């Protein structure tokens, strides 16, 4: 019996542009179970990234019900939400979002440090898993875009998160790199039975690799 990781009912999120309220998520009902590999697709501007940020508790939702691991997220304060993100969630972004001043190794290590873990061997292991053990002392600017994304994946997975939220992880990569990164994400997902992966993509091949596809349109899930 698998357990529910995220559950939303009528989830709302607005952005405020000047004094104008712009609804972006307009009643999302989803249920994500542990171990699932879910792809989110939809046209540009439909709110995919926003949904991912809300699920990852990077911002607050404005209405509806949002439960994470059974807890009502509305009842959590900022500190508790940060703690939940730190302990259970990891992000991979389209633009990698590595820290430019740090080496690949230090970037991966940062994820552990934030969790108060100063060990080394997991870092090396994570970089090995993404095939970058040799380049761990390189700065992001000295790595190719495909390599940068692999560092970002190593950083996300080094802490063995329960949930991986990936926002167009192959969006900045050519087809060859896309394939490699995608195989990496899927492979690592499969290796870790408990891990849930939610991935935004436009890439047909990734969609095919997913267990389930959520199609979004205009701030809602298409049924």
């Amino acid at each position, binding site marked *: 019996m698998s357990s529910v990781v995220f559950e939303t009912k009528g989830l709302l999120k607005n952005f405020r542009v000047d004094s104008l309220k712009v609804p972006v998520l307009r009643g999302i009902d989803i249920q994500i179970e542990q171990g699932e590999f879910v792809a989110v697709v939809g046209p540009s501007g439909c709110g995919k990234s926003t949904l991912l940020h809300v699920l990852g508790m*990077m911002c607050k939702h404005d209405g509806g019900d949002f439960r994470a691991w059974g807890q009502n997220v509305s009842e959590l304060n900022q500190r508790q939400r*940060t703690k939940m993100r730190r302990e259970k969630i990891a*992000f991979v972004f389209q633009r990698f*979002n*590595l820290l430019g001043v*740090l080496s690949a190794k230090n970037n991966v290590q*940062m994820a552990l440090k*934030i*969790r108060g873990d100063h060990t080394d061997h997991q870092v090396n292991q994570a970089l090995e898993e993404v095939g970058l053990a040799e380049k761990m002392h390189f700065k992001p600017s000295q790595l190719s875009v495909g390599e940068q994304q692999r560092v970002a994946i190593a*950083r996300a997975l080094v802490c063995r998160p329960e949930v991986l939220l990936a926002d167009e992880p192959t969006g900045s990569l050519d087809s060859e790199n896309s394939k490699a990164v995608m195989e990496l994400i899927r492979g690592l997902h499969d290796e870790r039975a408990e891990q849930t992966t939610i991935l935004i993509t436009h890439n047909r091949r990734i969609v095919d690799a997913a267990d389930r596809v959520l199609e979004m349109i205009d701030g809602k899930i298409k049924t």
Partner: protein
Amino acid sequence: MWLPLANILHRKLRTGLSVLAVGIGISMLIVLVSLSRGSIDEVVKRWSSIRAELWVLPRSVDVITAKGDYLDDRVIQQILNVKIDGKPVASQVTPVFKASMHLAGQEQSVWGIDPDDLETIAGGKKIIKGRQFDAERKFKTLIAQKRAGRRDYDPDSISKSELGEGLELIIDQRLAQAAKANIGDSVGLLGKKFVIVGIIETGVPARVLTSLQTIRCIKGVSRARSTFYFARVNKSIDAVAAQEAIAKDLPGLRVERTGAFAGILADSVAIATIIPDVICGISVVVSFLFILLTVYTMVLERSKEIAILRSLGANSGFIHRGIISEALLISVGGIVVGIVLSYGGKMLIESHWPLLTVDIKGQWLGLAVVVGLVGGVLSSQMPAWLAVRADPLAALSEA
């Protein structure tokens, strides 16, 4: 590498300039405090050579310039007459007639003392070159003869050649070096040409010592008068008790402990320490505004980094600590640079103005370290607060 360190090393020029700005502020603090306090301490140390416990001066006199009324030497006997339980409190009273002269680029105070009182005033400091002024007491004897037991005599009755015998002075070694003066050189004092006849070890209360009789004669003082006196207290009597007894019996006099000169000097020249202190304060504030600006611009250009840390689960405390650490790294660099600059400044000042004392003490270095660290923490509060408040989402989607 540690993120704050990586960040400040990333912008080397800006970091370098901030470190320099803080370093200059810190070194101003160290040098000015060491200079103002060091100069006072140096005078106080010289005063400690005086072999007398009490300093007696007219009520009206200004302790620093010693300008004011002169006392009639009759007070010497009056002081010697003061008794506690029938025992005289003072065993010896030494008169000083103060003047001043320009030498080595600054005003030097000149003490006219009786040639027989050198030991009391100089506290055993030795003449290392040449000899004492009026070594054979010729001029002292001449004046005694003119006076012939009377209280008044006519200073004009001293001929020019007779006065010439008295125009001698000695200076301390530090002044000799500063003025590049040597035995046999002549220097102007009170409109006359004096000859330097001796150089005494540094540590005498006035850097220039000459004959009391000569100074009085040139000043046209017909009766024995002095600027102030030092009284040696009898061994069996407590100095404070003696001070109170003299002050009570001779209410026209101000009586101070010689050892209390430090406090008197510090009080009277408060202005000499307040001005440097104000300048220090301003320079320290300016250098921390520099840290604030540096850290502030760092925060502005690093909204993305902060957002990334947020996405990795960093809480406000983690981000706050990172920003403060960067400010502290700059402060620590500034403190190191400041200390190095301070020693450079000390060498520069002391080689240009050899009579100034820049006494860099551990306590001033400690003060600089504390000011630097506290300033670093304080000036990073505002940028750190901005960093914590920043919205991470906007930054994450930026290219």
